[in-house]
C-alpha cells in the first residue's frame, strides 16, 4: 500500500515546485530543457503544464433539432453563462448554477437542421412561408400536445425523408439560413471566450446515426471566428452530406487547407453504436479498416469521450471479467433507438479499453494505431446545462429536468427494450493539463492527450511513465519536474528503455469538495506474440491500510452513505494517494498501454437527491450508490525495432 501523506506532494504536482530547491529537487542540468529560462523565479519560463482545466466537450442548446423541438428554449448565450458560473433559468423554469464554474467548454449542437427548431419556434419568415412550416409553427404556438405532435411530425418527416426539400436545403451546409445559425454559434463563442480566464471553443456535433447506430463525432476548432466563418459545418442528410466518417475527415482536411486553422474530431461514447464505433475489419459504411482508414482515424480523432450521461464506456464486465469495477453504469440494451438489441460480439467495438487493445493489433498490422486516443468526458446534455454533479443534475433533456417523476420515466423505449430514467448517469467532465486557459493551450493538450476523464468530480490526477522513477521521486517537493524530467505524462509514448521494466509515478488528490479516494488502479493492455490481446487491472495505491485477500483482491473500502440524508462522510478513504508502480509482468517484445483509474469512496447517485427533495419513488433495481471515478489517457509502450 502506497499512501502518500504529504499534501505538498499534490500541491507540487499541480503548481509544481514553489520549493524546488528543497529536498528532492530536480537535477538542474536535466531540467534545463523543460525549464529553459533558469530564471530566479521557479515559475517563469516553465514549459510543462501545471494546471488542470475543467471542461465539457459536448453540450447542446435549443439550436439542436431534438433539443429545441422538445422544449429546450435556451441558446448558446445561456449555456456559456452557466459554464462561466452565472445563475440561469432552465427551460422548465428552475434556477440553476454550477457548484463551480467550468474553465472551458465546447458547444456541440447537431448540424443536421441546426437552428431549424429555434427558427420554427420564433416563426422565422422563411419557415412560415412554407405550408408545413406554418402548420408546425401553429402547433408550437398552441403548446401542449399540439406542440408535441408538431415536433413528432417534423421528426418523422425528417427521418423518412419527406421533409420539405426547401427546409433540408436551407438548413444544410452552405445555405444562407444554416450559415446564419452557424454565425450565431460562432459569435456567441467569441463573446464568451476570455483568454486566460475562460475558453469557449467553437464546435459542433456531426450527427451520424445510420439505422440507429450512434457514430456521432464532436468537432472542435482550435481557431476563432476568422477561420470558423470561412466554413459551413457538414451535415449527414443526403444529398447534402453523408453518415460516413470519411466525409467528416475530408471536411476537416478541407477546413485546415482552406483556413490554415486546426481542428479535430472526437468520437461519441460508442456504447450505442452496436459495435461500429471501433471496427477492426469492416466499417459500417461498407469500407475496410485498411491503411487509409487507420491513418485518417489516427489523424483526425485523437480524443475519445469515454463517459457521459448516456452511460459509461470504459469497460464492460463481459469483456473484462476479472475487473470487479467494470460493471459500472453500462448501457448495453441496444443501439440508440433500440431498434437492434445488443449481442455479445458487438461489445468489443464499443468500449474504450477494448478499442485501445484493438488499436495495438491494428498498429502491428498497419504500422499506425487508429485507436491511440486520449480520453475525456462530457455531459452530452440537451438542456444547455452542463451539470455533472449528482446533487445538481439537470438531466439529459428538458423533459427530464428535475421533477418528482423523472426517475420513473424511460429515457428511450422501443418494442425491444428500454433504458429507464434512473439509468442516466450524471457524468462527466474532462480535466486538461495545460499551461494556460486558452483555446490554443487546451486544444493542444487534447491533441497530445494530456487529459483525463471523470464522471463528475474534479479530482486531480498526475500520471507519468518512465524507466527510472524511484520512491524518492515521490517524496520530492517538486514531483511534476521529476515526472516530466524522467518520464512522459498521460497521453505520451514511453521513451527508450533504460531498465528492466517501466515504472510510473502516479498521484491522485480528491476533489476538494468531493469524496475521499478508495484506490488507484493501473489498467494495462498488451498484445502477445501470438496476436492475443490481454488486459490486467492492478491495484497500486489504496486507503485505510487494507491488505489484499488470498485471492489478491483488495477488500472494499466501506460505505458511509446515508441514503436518508443523501450524504456521506469522508471518514474512510484517503484525501490523496500516490505511488511509484513498476510493471511486474513487463515483456519488452510486447506492445502495451497503461492508464490509471481512480475510484472514489461510495457516494449517493442523483436519484437519492431526487428522493430527498421531491419524495421521488426509486425502483428497487436502481443503483443508489456509485463509486465515481477518473480515467487518464494512456501511456503507450512500443517495442524497439
Amino acid at each position, binding site marked *: 500500500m502506497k499512501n502518500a501523506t504529504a499534501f505538498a506532494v499534490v500541491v507540487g504536482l499541480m503548481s509544481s515546485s514553489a520549493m524546488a530547491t528543497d529536498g528532492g529537487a530536480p537535477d538542474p542540468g536535466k531540467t534545463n530543457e523543460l525549464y529553459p529560462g533558469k530564471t530566479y523565479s521557479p515559475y517563469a519560463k516553465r514549459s510543462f503544464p501545471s494546471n488542470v482545466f475543467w471542461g465539457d466537450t459536448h453540450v447542446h442548446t435549443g439550436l439542436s*433539432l*431534438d*433539443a429545441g*423541438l*422538445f422544449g429546450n428554449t435556451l441558446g448558446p448565450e445561456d449555456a456559456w453563462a452557466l459554464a462561466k458560473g452565472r445563475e440561469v433559468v432552465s427551460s422548465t423554469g428552475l434556477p440553476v448554477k454550477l457548484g463551480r464554474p467550468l474553465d472551458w467548454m465546447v458547444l456541440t449542437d*447537431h448540424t*443536421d437542421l441546426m437552428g431549424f427548431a429555434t427558427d420554427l419556434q420564433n416563426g422565422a419568415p422563411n419557415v412560415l412561408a412554407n405550408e408545413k412550416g406554418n*402548420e408546425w409553427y*401553429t*402547433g408550437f404556438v*398552441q403548446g*401542449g*400536445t*399540439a*406542440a*408535441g*405532435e408538431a415536433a*413528432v*411530425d417534423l*421528426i*418523422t418527416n*425528417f*427521418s*423518412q*425523408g419527406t421533409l420539405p426539400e426547401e427546409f433540408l436545403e436551407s438548413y444544410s451546409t452552405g445555405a444562407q439560413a444554416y450559415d446564419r445559425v452557424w454565425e450565431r454559434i460562432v459569435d456567441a463563442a467569441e463573446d464568451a471566450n476570455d483568454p486566460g480566464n475562460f475558453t469557449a471553443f467553437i464546435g459542433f*456535433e456531426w*450527427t451520424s*446515426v445510420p*439505422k*440507429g447506430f450512434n457514430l*456521432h463525432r464532436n468537432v472542435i476548432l482550435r481557431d476563432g471566428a476568422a477561420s470558423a466563418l470561412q466554413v459551413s459545418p457538414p451535415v449527414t442528410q443526403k444529398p447534402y452530406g453523408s453518415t460516413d466518417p470519411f466525409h467528416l475527415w475530408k471536411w476537416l482536411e478541407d477546413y485546415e487547407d482552406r483556413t490554415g486553422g486546426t481542428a479535430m474530431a472526437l468520437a461519441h461514447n460508442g456504447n450505442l453504436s452496436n459495435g461500429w464505433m471501433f471496427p477492426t475489419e469492416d466499417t459500417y459504411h461498407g469500407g475496410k479498416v485498411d491503411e487509409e482508414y487507420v491513418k485518417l482515424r489516427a489523424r483526425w480523432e485523437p480524443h475519445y469521450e469515454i463517459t457521459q450521461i448516456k452511460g459509461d464506456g470504459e469497460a464492460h*464486465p*463481459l469483456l473484462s471479467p476479472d475487473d470487479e469495477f467494470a*460493471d459500472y453504469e*453500462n*448501457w*448495453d440494451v441496444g443501439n440508440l*433507438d433500440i*431498434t*437492434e*438489441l*445488443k449481442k*455479445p460480439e458487438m461489445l468489443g467495438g464499443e468500449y474504450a479499453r477494448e478499442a485501445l487493445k484493438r488499436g495495438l493489433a491494428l498498429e502491428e498490422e498497419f504500422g499506425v494505431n487508429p485507436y491511440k486516443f486520449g480520453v475525456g468526458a462530457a455531459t452530452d446534455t*440537451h438542456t444547455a446545462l452542463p451539470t455533472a454533479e449528482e446533487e445538481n443534475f439537470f438531466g*439529459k*433533456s428538458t*423533459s427530464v429536468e428535475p421533477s418528482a417523476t423523472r426517475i*420513473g*420515466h*424511460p*429515457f*428511450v423505449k*422501443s*418494442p*425491444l*427494450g428500454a*433504458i*429507464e430514467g434512473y439509468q442516466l448517469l450524471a457524468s462527466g467532465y474532462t480535466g486538461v493539463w495545460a499551461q494556460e486557459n486558452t483555446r490554443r493551450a487546451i486544444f493542444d493538450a487534447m491533441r497530445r492527450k494530456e487529459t483525463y476523464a471523470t464522471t463528475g468530480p474534479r479530482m486531480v490526477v498526475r500520471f507519468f511513465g518512465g524507466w527510472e522513477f524511484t520512491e524518492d521521486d515521490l517524496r520530492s517537493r517538486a514531483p511534476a519536474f521529476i515526472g516530466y524530467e524522467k518520464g512522459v505524462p498521460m497521453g505520451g509514448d514511453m521513451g527508450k528503455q533504460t531498465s528492466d521494466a517501466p515504472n510510473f509515478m502516479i498521484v491522485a488528490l480528491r476533489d476538494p469538495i468531493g469524496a475521499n479516494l478508495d484506490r488507484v488502479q493501473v489498467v494495462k493492455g498488451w498484445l502477445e506474440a501470438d496476436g492475443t490481446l490481454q488486459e490486467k487491472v492492478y491495484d497500486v495505491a489504496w486507503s485505510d491500510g487494507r491488505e489484499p485477500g488470498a485471492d489478491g483482491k483488495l477488500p472494499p473500502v466501506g460505505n458511509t452513505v446515508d441514503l436518508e440524508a443523501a450524504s456521506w462522510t469522508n471518514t474512510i478513504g484517503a484525501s490523496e494517494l500516490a505511488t511509484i508502480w513498476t510493471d511486474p509482468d513487463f515483456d519488452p517484445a510486447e506492445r502495451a498501454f497503461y492508464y490509471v483509474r481512480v475510484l472514489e469512496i461510495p457516494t449517493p447517485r442523483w436519484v437519492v437527491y431526487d428522493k430527498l427533495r421531491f419524495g421521488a419513488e426509486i425502483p428497487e*433495481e436502481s*443503483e443508489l450508490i456509485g463509486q465515481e471515478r477518473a480515467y487518464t489517457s494512456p501511456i503507450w509502450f512500443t517495442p524497439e525495432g
Partner: protein
Amino acid sequence: MLMRTALAVAILAVASSTALACTVCFPYPKATGVDYLDDAGVVVLARENPAKRFSFLAKQVLKGALAVPEVDLFLNSSDRRKLTVDPGRAAVLVHGRFHEPVSPTGVTQDAPATEDAAPAWRSLGVASLRQETLIRDVLERLPQWNAAANGDAQRAAFFMPYLADPERAIRDLAYLEVGQADYDLILKADRFVTSEEVQAFLNDRQYLEWHPLYILLLGVNADEAERAYIRQQAQTRLSLGQTINLSAWITAYIEADGETAIDWIERTQLNLLSASGEVVVQIFDALSVHGNRTTPVLRDRITRSYDVALSNYPVLAGRIAKDMALWRDWTLAETVRRVRTEFADLDNASAYAIDYYLGSAETN
C-alpha cells in the same frame, strides 16, 4: 404473429417516430407481449446462467418443451441487475420465428413473425411476481381466446382492469391489448381509468404515439369542459392539416358532439377541396369507426357525409364502398358507379371493393 384487425387499429396506427440524435418519443409497438407469448413455441422463465455470465439459464418452462436449459441470448446489464437485486424474479424468454426489427434510417419498427424468419430467442424483460402471475394466467387463457369467435374481445376485456395497474409494465401491456379492441369495447375501458390519469398520459409527449387510446376514452361521457377541449383539439388539427393522431381526435370529437361534429367536419373539410389526402383518409377512418358501431346511431348521417366525400375525394370510393356493402346500404350506388367510371386509375383494392358493392347493389 397474430395481428388482429380490429377497427381501432386504424385509429391507433400512427406514423413511426425516430431517434434523431436523441430519442424524443416512444414508438407504438405493432405486436404486444401477449402476441409474442401466443406465437412462441417455447416460453420459459430464466435467470442468469452462473456458468456463462450475461446469458440465461431456463428455470421453468411455461409453454412448449426445451431440449437444454442454456439459452444463448445476451442478458443486458439492466436486466441482470434486476435479477440480482431480487432473486425471486425471472426473465420471460420466448422462442419463435420473430422477425428482426427493421430500422430504415432510424425508424423503429417491429415486425410480425412469418415462416421465413429464423427461429430465435427473445426476452420480454424481467417480470415482477405480479407480472409472472399474469403471464401464467394469459398462457392458460390464450387457447380459449384463440378458439372463441369473440376471443379478441374476451382478451381485451380481460386486460381492461390492468389499465390502472400500479406497475407500468402491466399498464403498458394492457394499453396495447385494449388498443387492439373494437371501438365499442374500447369505450367500456373508460371506467377503469380516471380522467386525471388520461390527461397525465396525454401530457407526456414521449408517449405521443401511444396517445390515441386515451384520446378515444377522453370522448366517453365527456363533460362540457372536456367536450370543448376535444372540439378545440380536433378542429385545430383539421384546420392545420396536422395528421398525427388526427383520426383519434376526430373520433373523440364525434363521440362528444355527435352530428354537430360531423356537420362541422363536412362543412369545413369534405365540402371543400383543400384537405390533403392523408387528412380525408383520417376523417374517413373516424366516420367509419362510428358507422360500424354495434348500435350505429350516426350511420345515416355518416352516409350523407360519404356522399359528399365521394364527390370531392374519389380516392375514398373504395373505402366507402366497402363500408356501404357491409351496411347493405345501396343508396350511394349511383355515385360510386360514377366514380368508377370517371376515375380509371383506382388501385386494385378500391376497384375490387367498388365492383363488389355495385354488383351487390344490383342484386339487392
